[in-house]
């Protein structure tokens, strides 16, 4: 019997879901994100049996996890949590890391205190769907003053077309605790449609230090990802968040950071690489609810094929949040004549005595740099590859996690080599 808070939340979310039409996100005339090609009624949650070891997980998850030393692991395949581990020494220190379903059974009060504190089912049909229908999920609680070096790893896998995956990750890092959390969203190259509607919430309590990474690679199949991820940073706490988008047929995500109390500090560094027909629509908010908070947002993307990527980043400093210092910059690099990128930084400042700045660029590979590299004997494709890798390198380094950095570098290199001829043709054309 689920606790009443969950039942109530699911019930009201279901009402919103049934009331709301399928959304279309329109902005400034020409940019539209629509899910009209998504055949939602043909998708359903797929259930799978648990497995005893990483070796029995779908290949796409096994590959991504190879050789990693983790503090704990929660893997959800389709609708089911199929594998969970947690270092027993950490469990002894009071760390909880398991499916959200199990956390609600075993720690209902702890979950109830945080569950959807910063999320709402009222944000649209897919937020409501995630809140009403999620299964499995992940829950992390690191108690006060506990420091964990190795990362906690959550993996959402979709490995069958026709899957609807409703996901919910809730993470709470206690006072002066330190940890690192990764969430991977992975699929092989599926033949057919699938949906991931996800919710993610992280609360960093006073003085907590958290490294957070999201890696999305849904492969070349028709996977729709419509998700909301929100991070709240408490007093004198710090969160460095690195979302990495490496693939997905259509992605619409809202990524928000709230510096909620004095002294809270965030660093948000994102990366995307789109190819083929992919459509990526990101909206990030850097919300400063109190003064003496700091923020630093950098997003970098590259586009090949006919892909489209829109990044809209808002800095919002509310009334009274004086002495806030923050900036936001976004860069996109076009590697194909048919790709389209849009970068829209914006600013709402409702107080005085703050410093806030933003900037955005959309550019192409700099031919002068290509020439310079070619004079060293480096072929044009290699020069372009090295330049794009170098363009992303400062973002990749912010992961501050060698095995994850290696994974991201390898995937970017593979995408660049897949697009090599296209990129060369584009350079010749210019």
């Amino acid at each position, binding site marked *: 019997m689920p606790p009443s808070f969950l039942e109530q939340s699911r019930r009201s979310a279901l009402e919103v879901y049934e009331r709301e039409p399928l959304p279309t996100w329109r902005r400034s005339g020409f940019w539209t994100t629509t899910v009209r090609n998504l055949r939602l009624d043909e998708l359903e949650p797929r259930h799978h049996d648990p497995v005893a070891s990483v070796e029995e997980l779908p290949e796409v998850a096994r590959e991504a996890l190879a050789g990693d030393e983790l503090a704990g692991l929660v893997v959800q395949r389709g609708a089911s949590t199929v594998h969970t581990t947690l270092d027993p020494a950490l469990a002894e220190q009071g760390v909880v890391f398991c499916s959200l379903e199990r956390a609600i059974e075993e720690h209902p009060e702890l979950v109830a205190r945080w569950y959807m504190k910063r999320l709402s089912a009222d944000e649209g049909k897919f937020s409501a769907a995630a809140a009403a229908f999620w299964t499995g999920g992940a829950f992390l609680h690191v108690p006060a003053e506990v420091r964990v070096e190795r990362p906690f790893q959550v993996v959402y896998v979709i490995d069958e077309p026709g899957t609807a995956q409703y996901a919910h990750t809730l993470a709470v890092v206690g006072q002066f605790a330190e940890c690192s959390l990764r969430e991977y969203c992975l699929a092989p190259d599926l033949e057919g449609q699938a949906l991931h509607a996800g919710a993610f919430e992280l609360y960093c309590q006073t003085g907590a230090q958290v490294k957070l990474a999201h890696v999305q690679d849904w492969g070349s199949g028709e996977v729709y990802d419509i998700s909301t991820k929100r991070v709240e940073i408490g007093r004198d706490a710090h969160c460095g968040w690195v979302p990495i988008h490496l693939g997905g047929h259509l992605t619409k995500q809202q990524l928000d950071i709230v510096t909620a109390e004095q002294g809270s500090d965030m660093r948000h560094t994102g990366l995307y690489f789109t190819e083929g027909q992919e459509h990526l629509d990101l909206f990030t908010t850097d919300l400063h609810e109190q003064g003496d908070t700091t923020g630093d947002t950098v997003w970098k993307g590259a586009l090949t094929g006919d892909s489209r990527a829109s990044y809209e980043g808002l800095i919002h400093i509310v009334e009274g949040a004086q002495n806030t210092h923050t900036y936001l910059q976004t860069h996109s690099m076009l590697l194909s004549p048919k790709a389209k990128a849009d970068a829209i930084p914006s600013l709402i400042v409702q107080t005085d005595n703050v410093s806030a700045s933003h900037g955005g660029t959309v550019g192409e590979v700099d031919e002068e740099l290509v020439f310079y590299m070619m004079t060293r*004997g480096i072929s*044009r494709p290699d020069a372009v590859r090295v330049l794009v890798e170098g*363009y992303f390198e400062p973002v990749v380094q912010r992961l501050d996690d060698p095995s994850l950095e290696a994974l991201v570098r390898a995937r970017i290199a593979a995408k660049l080599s897949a697009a090599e001829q296209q990129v060369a043709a584009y350079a010749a054309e210019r």
Partner: protein
Amino acid sequence: MSLEIQNLHVSTDDREILHGVDLSVAKGETHALMGPNGSGKSTLANTIMGNPAYQVTEGRILLNGEDVTEAEPDERARAGLFLAFQYPATIPGVSVANFLRTAVNAGRDEPIKVKDFGALLRENMELLKMDPAFNKRYLNEGFSGGEKKRAEILQLAMLRPQIAVLDETDSGLDIDALRVVSDGVNALRGPDLGTLIITHYTRILRYVRPDFVHIMLDGRIVREGGADLADQLEEQGYDFIREEVSAADAS
């Protein structure tokens, strides 16, 4: 191995800059190409290397007798040509070591072993009195003028070309940096390297003595001689040459 430039006419933005230049540099020789600003020296350097911003409208460039006038810059480099840039590009996010390894491997069939590369890099950085921490920095990002020029000479040392063109490598260097760079060039000189030093001033030539000096004015080579021609230029300046040339043109 030799670089031969024959009757080279070069335009950029539909304007002819070089009006028929002839010049040969053989392995083992050190040449200086001197001239005032705007005389076409950098145009020649960029054209030798195949910069697409410059169009060869007449004449040709031969490397070992083979016509490379239309060759891509990377082909020229792999054939043994090198250009140390006056204004080297900044390559964001690419460390000196990573860049050099990519460049060294571009000229090889099998990639160099990590250990061998490390040893080669250390040896050459010592030669140029460079701090080992240098190789972790992104190439030319935030480098001082002297560091950029040293990074160029480091590339020269690592890539071991047969003909190297140094475009105003001495400009913007203080006397200490000039000495370090000159020592580096001198250490690399020898029977296996031909060098074309392009410069406005004579001061680098005090450290790196040329075998031949060519003087360029308005897109033409107007005087050629030995090292003493540079000395004469230092004493009398470009005006004396300019006057001589216009007197000769008038007669």
